């Protein structure tokens, strides 16, 4: 049995099977990316925060655009090579295509990596701070690594001076229990069972040290007791219902009429019930500082709760977000909120916690104001006013209200905005802190935890722009990798196919090339909407 039209096109449709299939597949892909592009439009139009414009480094994106366009040309040469039966031409062109894919992915990886290591914080007054975090030495709990070096908590953690821990026996997360034990161990603290516990006749004395095994044992007991009790109670309730329905006066009544009168008689089944242990408390001696990543903790003044329902009983310690290098300050969100309320933006900015409490931030803001005024003057001189006496061009909101890392460099170098010298690596990787250190370009800053609304790296969690940026470019990246793998297969394993039937390989490469063009086309749309607009 042989499937027809694999090598030679069917006469009335003029196509081989794989060509129909790839066009259908591409139609489906158009709908997939169409869904994402529509979502982009929807999210951007509906955004209730200043949409980041030109927030990404343009240079690597631009290079990637040309790399992909170039590879689309070489993939056609590869196909032509096969059609001309020039194996060498195919090999070289296809090799270049795949090399281009590699260059594209490397640049992409650098871009992602920079984002994932760059901190962003949104304060409750909508000020946005960007930069690199400190490893806060004061918050360090005195732990040491195996080599005797001190372990520092990254300065975006919640610290709790814990007196006791209460675990939810069903939901405790093993790695976190281990982490608690590790932190306790390196502080020389003991975590011991607070009260004697009796499980199925066996007594576990108070003072038994915490271990995952112990918790698992208690968990097992709890599940057994719960299962037993559930059975007993179900049977009791069922018996109650049977008895209720059996009464002659209830003959015409419906279940919902009788329900209020049907209850389990707990006294009757008391002996059959087993003790459940839904939670268990361990004392921490002496009181010890535990720290967890802030997203995993719901902090409270005297009681903080981990996401697995483990309660840390004790005082919440000072857990600031400490910037070692604050490389951008963004007031656009402050301004947006102020304008909604009809407040003068400059007044709103100057009333923020940041401007009131940080000398360096205030200086940067004053510098930025002066630069904006200068720019306004220049624009007025260059473009003039319209017939209503309004300046034809004015500085943008970004120029007015955002102090970016390049601005900090310009300020430290004592030059006007836009005149700063940027090292070429900085165009790809963002500011080079070591290079800028001598001039103290970027301020240090400690933000109290209770002022922070949201803090994290530049990940999809930061805002919907980064969410759609990562999702779309990641998906596109997957397509690049997938396409390169398929084309690479033809390059490295296609020789046999070529020898047996060159037209076969040519068909395959044509289909792969169509896909490759599509991947290129998607990027042509992605680049402007994510990098330029």
């Amino acid at each position, binding site marked *: 049995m042989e499937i027809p039209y694999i090598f030679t096109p069917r006469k009335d449709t003029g196509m081989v099977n794989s060509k129909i299939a790839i066009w259908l597949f591409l139609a489906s*892909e158009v709908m*997939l990316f169409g869904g994402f592009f529509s979502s982009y439009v929807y999210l951007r139009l509906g955004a209730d925060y200043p949409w980041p414009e030109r927030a990404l480094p343009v240079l690597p994106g631009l290079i990637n655009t040309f790399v992909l366009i170039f590879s689309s040309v070489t993939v056609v040469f590869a196909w032509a090579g096969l059609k001309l039966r020039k194996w060498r031409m195919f090999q070289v062109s296809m090799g270049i295509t795949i090399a281009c894919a590699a260059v594209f992915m490397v640049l992409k990886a650098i871009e992602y990596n920079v984002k994932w290591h760059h901190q962003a914080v949104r304060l409750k007054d909508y000020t946005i701070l960007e930069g690199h975090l400190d490893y806060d030495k004061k918050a360090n709990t005195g732990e040491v690594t195996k080599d005797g070096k001190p372990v520092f908590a990254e300065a975006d953690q919640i610290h709790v001076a814990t007196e006791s821990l209460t675990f939810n026996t069903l939901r405790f997360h093993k790695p976190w229990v281990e982490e608690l034990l590790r932190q306790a161990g390196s502080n020389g603290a003991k975590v011991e069972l607070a009260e004697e516990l009796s499980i199925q006749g066996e007594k576990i004395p108070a003072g038994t040290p915490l271990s995952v095994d112990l918790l698992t044992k208690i968990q097992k007991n709890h599940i057994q007791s*719960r299962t037993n009790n559930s059975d007993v109670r179900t049977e009791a309730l069922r018996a109650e219902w049977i008895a209720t329905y059996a009464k002659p006066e209830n003959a015409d009544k419906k279940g919902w009429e009788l329900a209020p009168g049907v209850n389990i008689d707990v006294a009757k089944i008391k002996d059959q019930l087993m003790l459940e242990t839904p939670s268990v408390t361990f004392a921490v001696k002496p009181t010890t500082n535990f720290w967890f990543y802030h997203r*995993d903790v719901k902090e409270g003044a005297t009681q903080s709760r981990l996401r697995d329902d483990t309660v840390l009983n004790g005082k919440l310690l000072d857990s600031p977000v400490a910037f070692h290098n604050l490389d951008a300050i963004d007031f656009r969100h402050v301004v947006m909120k102020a304008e909604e309320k009809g407040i003068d933006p400059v007044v709103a900015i100057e009333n923020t916690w940041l401007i009131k409490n940080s000398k360096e931030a205030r200086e940067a803001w004053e510098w930025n104001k002066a630069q904006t005024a200068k720019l306004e003057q220049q624009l007025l001189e260059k473009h003039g006013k319209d017939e209503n006496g309004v300046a034809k061009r004015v500085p943008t909101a970004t120029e007015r209200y955002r102090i970016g890392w390049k601005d900090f460099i310009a300020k430290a170098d004592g030059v006007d905005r836009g005149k700063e010298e940027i090292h070429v690596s900085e165009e790809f990787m963002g500011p080079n802190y070591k290079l800028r250190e001598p001039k103290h370009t970027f301020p240090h800053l400690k933000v109290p935890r209770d002022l922070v609304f*949201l803090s994290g790296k530049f990940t999809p969690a930061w805002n919907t722009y980064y969410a759609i940026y990562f999702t779309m470019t990641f998906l596109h990246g997957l397509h690049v990798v997938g396409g390169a793998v398929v084309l690479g297969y033809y390059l490295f394993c296609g020789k046999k196919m070529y020898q047996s039937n060159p037209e076969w390989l040519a068909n395959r490469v044509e289909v792969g090339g169509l896909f490759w063009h599509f991947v290129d086309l998607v990027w042509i749309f992605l680049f402007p909407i994510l990098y330029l607009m």
Partner: protein
Amino acid sequence: MSAHAATADHSHHDDHGHHHEPGFLQKYVFSTDHKTIGIQYGITAMLFLLFGFYLMMVMRWSIAYPHEPLPGWMSWVFTDTWKARWLSDGKVTGDTYNMFGAMHGTIMVFLGVVPLGFGAFGNYVTPLQIGAVDMAFPKLNMLSYWIYLVGGLVMCASFFMESGAAKSGWTNYSPLAGFADGQIVNQWLAGQTQWLLGLVLLITSSLLGSVNFITTIINLRARGMTWMRLPFFVWAMLVTGFLLLLAFPPLEAAGIMQLADRVFHSSFFMPSGLFTKSEGLVELSGGGSPLLFQHLFWFLGHPEVYVLLLPAIACVAEIIPANTRRPLWGYKSMVYGVIVLGFLSFIVWAHHMYLTGMGPKISTWFQITTVLISVPSVILLTALMISLWGGSIRFTPAMTWACAFIPMFGIGGLTGLPLAFNLVDLHLHDTYYVIGHFHYVVAPGILFGLFAGVHHWYPKITGRYMSKTLNHMHFWPTLICMNFLFFPMLVQGMAGFHRRWYNGGDAYLAKAADSTNVFGQTVAQHIDLNITMSWAAWIMAAFQIPFIVNVFLSLFAGKKVGSDNPWNATTLEWATPTPPGHGNFTFDVATYRGPYEYSQPGAEKDYLPQWEKPATTAPADAPTQAPAAH
């Protein structure tokens, strides 16, 4: 090197015209033959349907008897630990009800009906009807089945996880679905996340399937099989393929974004200032839109309705002509109707979202398109109905189901009309009326069509007929129970019963005593219907047993077919040996006429199969035979 040797060996066999005998695994499990894959799809889908049905029975207990422990005959499936975790004193809890409700919908739609209609019937019948040796991409076809199976298992595995399975309804609306199971530390292991992973796999599977189907239909038609000679079944599959191809990707986009919301804490569908009872002000960036999810979901969701429907209507359209011995009435209008239907189904989605306050202009547009789409639907149904007119009907088992399909689907369709209108929908939205409406479409409508299909093609697949007696034991009780199950829903819905009450409205009864609370009294008047409906559901479950017995028993004890064409039908699948071997046809297939030439004037027999060469086209035979035939 051994692989090379095996290949060489294989080709050596082929060269000499021997058939390489595949092993058991290759023949029945990892088969690339479209017929085996179709059967695999069919069995898997029916098992999922059974499971979905079971979930519904538990839910119906909670609705009818919310205060009473689940009876032993229903709860024996669960382990004791599971019962302790998910039942409260043996009663179904709200969480458990939500979980079963969400999974009932998901399983029935994505894992049951679509794979049965499109995956099973489509796979088995389509290549046969167009005279192809197999699908265009047999390996892709196999991959499609396995991805579907894995996706389904991933979804269902979550029943046994700490979080339980998804609980946010089959529509999975954010922000609820973005938060659900938030207490699970490793979000990849939460039921709600597994649902999304399963969904992405299912979409991948249906993408591969639809590409394969469309390519096959376009490129692998036999000689003479022109577009207007395609059986209606194939047309319906072609349109279904396009719906799957183009409507699913936006849901995949939504699924990926919701996955990001859950796992990477993005805010695609999370608005600013979200406040929950358990978490307070939620620590998320916000700025997203829950409405965006609804748009993306229903952009798939509506075409999906036709993905469910078209295979069923396709089966019925094959069965009716074969059993009335008349051509399908209005074949061409049905073909054009189904194409228009497919097209229109892409621009009606927001009629599921009238309650979101989209404004009069947009809702008017969607009202118009929604009412428009009833035109091709009615064309299809009317054509089927008129096809019965004046036919000499044979009430074969398949025909009984096909005949019941028409009025039952008709009720489903007509009860949908009021929902098309914004003003009426505002009242009926999210009530049991909606549930009644779409269950009339899906259960006694689509499932009846698919049951018909099982009976119709069973003799081709196995070489034996299914039992008529067992079919009567299955058919009549099912037909009656269906109506007792779904008609009261329409009544309750108009009285305002909400679709997600886990206790069937019981919570409102206390308020009925308060004479000023009119709604409580309305609930009291209609709450007893819950019991009627629940018993109808359970009795119906019992009467599915004859069907299951019939399917398995007939394999061994069914009456053997007398020929390869037991129904004296005209389409190409009946030209194959019974059951068809690998490669399907034993002769060089060619098509000479349209698909439904029954009772043609002047013909010797009452059917002219598509593959039979007409005498007139062979001039050599003309003097002896042609004058008699025409």
